[in-house]
């Protein structure tokens, strides 16, 4: 029954129950209200995406699929969506690769200055996005590069690497280092060991990292705003449409679709994670 600190106790007596008290007290009520506070605003997206009025305001008029039809016809929107998917695909693979290299170095090697190096790699998490954005803009301009999807991609890799590294460090710490050592001892070289032992064992973490970094890149606005050239990503397109009320409902339709796809992806990720822990536990323990 009790799984935490008292797991090792031989007697039935479970003091943590005394400490934890009743479960459905006022805190539970608060938690439900908090969840409502988080969910209510985003849920207006689907509501108004089906509303038969060009004005995104109350009262609600009637039900329509018109905005979804308009969305499917809007070339600007589809181009932006395609660009975002392209950037996101490259960024999630690149940042997961860099995150993996860093995570492997952080968890498997003893080296001086490891702590400061980890903090250094995590700096983009605490530097305001606007500073990274204009700094990259200034550099791009100084070097004479054109602003393009490439510059957006570079900035996204920068902010995604820390997330990838954190996810993968926790995964690599989760399984036994001796599995890799056994492979090396058996004469398999480091590269093959990495592909045949480390990667398969870290796979749930790798998938989690790819999904997380893709979602970050897909939704990133502040950096892309400064670094976009002629081709824009989806958030930039949405930003430009927020000024034109006539285009808004189709943007909301798109937002609803993205929300749905995201929820499905998150559910799949959780399912993979659960399967991952279920299959690796016997070997690791």
């Amino acid at each position, binding site marked *: 029954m009790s*799984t*935490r600190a*008292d797991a090792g106790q031989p007697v039935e007596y479970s003091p*943590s129950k*005394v*400490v*934890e008290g009743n*479960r459905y007290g006022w*805190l*539970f009520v*608060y*938690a439900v209200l*908090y969840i409502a*506070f*988080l969910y209510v*605003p*985003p849920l207006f*997206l689907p509501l108004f995406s089906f509303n038969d009025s060009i004005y*995104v*305001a*109350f009262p609600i008029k009637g039900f329509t699929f018109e905005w979804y039809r308009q969305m499917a016809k809007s070339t600007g929107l589809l181009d932006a969506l395609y660009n975002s998917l392209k950037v996101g695909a490259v960024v999630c693979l690149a940042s997961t690769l*860099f995150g993996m290299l860093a995570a492997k*170095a952080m968890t*498997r*090697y*003893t080296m001086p200055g490891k702590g400061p190096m980890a903090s*250094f*790699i995590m*700096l983009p*998490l*605490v*530097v*305001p*996005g*606007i*500073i*990274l954005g*204009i*700094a*990259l803009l*200034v*550099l791009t301009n*100084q070097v004479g590069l054109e602003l393009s999807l490439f510059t957006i991609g570079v900035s996204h*890799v*920068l902010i995604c*690497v820390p997330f990838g590294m954190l996810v993968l460090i926790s995964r690599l710490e989760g399984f036994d280092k001796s599995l890799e050592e056994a492979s090396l*001892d058996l*004469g398999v070289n480091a590269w093959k060991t990495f592909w045949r032992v480390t990667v398969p064992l870290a796979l749930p973490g790798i998938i989690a990292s790819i999904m997380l970094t893709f*979602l970050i890149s897909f*939704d990133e606005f*502040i950096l892309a705003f400064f670094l976009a050239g002629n081709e824009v990503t989806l*958030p930039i397109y949405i*930003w430009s449409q*927020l000024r034109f009320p006539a285009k808004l409902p189709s*943007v909301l339709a798109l*937002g609803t679709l993205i*929300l749905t796809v995201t*929820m499905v992806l*998150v559910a799949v990720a*959780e399912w993979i994670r659960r399967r991952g822990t279920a299959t690796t536990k016997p070997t690791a323990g």
Partner: protein
Amino acid sequence: MADRAGVLTSPAPIVRQDSRIQRFFLRHEWARGYALLSPTLAVMVLAMCLPVFMLAAHSFWTQNYLTIDETFTLANYEQALGWLWGAEGAKPIYIRLLWKSMQISFGVTVTTLILAYPFAYFLAFKVRRNKNLWIILISVPFLTSYLLRVFTWKIILGFNGVINSGLMSLGIISEPLEFLLYNPTAVLIVLAHAWAAFAILPIYVSLEKIDRSLLEAATDLGDGPFRRFWRITWPLSVPGVIASGLLVFIPTVGDYVTPKLVGGTEGIMIGNIIQSQFGKANNWPLGSALSIVMAIAITIVVLIFLYVMSLGRVRAK
């Protein structure tokens, strides 16, 4: 373990001729570690350090319409901060905006922490099964577009918004309330909503790590729930609270999306001014100087905050 490894490696087939470099890497573990780390470090240096260095350099230059004059000058900093020491022609607007941004961000941080703490406490102490489900539940809304999330607040707070039409249909008000949107309070509400999940997680982790036997000991020694919370749970969760606070405070100071969408003219923050220097105002060096000033100001505030917290904790011991 050592046995097995010893047996297996004893045939020692190392006959190949290693080069000097290979031998160096074989002999030094730290060298292999850094070799593995180097691509990531290179990305960080090229995409972060170098650009920030260029940004700092820019802040000492001057804009001449379309070209940039690269002679060293402190004029941009004088324009940004000169009001403090009464420099001629320096406007107070930059200092005031920076101060206002700090205030708004501080308000956002305090609000999110107060709202998030009970939830994190609930998650750490009351939820026994499916904790992950709750964590996913709080993070899903944050995977929708940030822009659209901010925009939905316009639907809620706006002239024909949810609150106004709701109150009017109930007959509580006869005219829509106009003070809901386009002011600093609206910015605060929207930012507090946008950063909620980020505040919960570090607090939750620090609460989850607390050894439950400490709480049991306190109860056994006669502490009531409030004393126990105040003397054990709260002090041990302070690191998480600090981490959450910094995670919210630092990025919100420079935010320009939320103020632009829901802040109106009163709700403008320093980020909007910096952004306009790279847009309409087209004065990159001044924009660079302002962003450097902002970064330094944030760093100073964070350091003071951490120093004060460390003083408090030393005294508590």
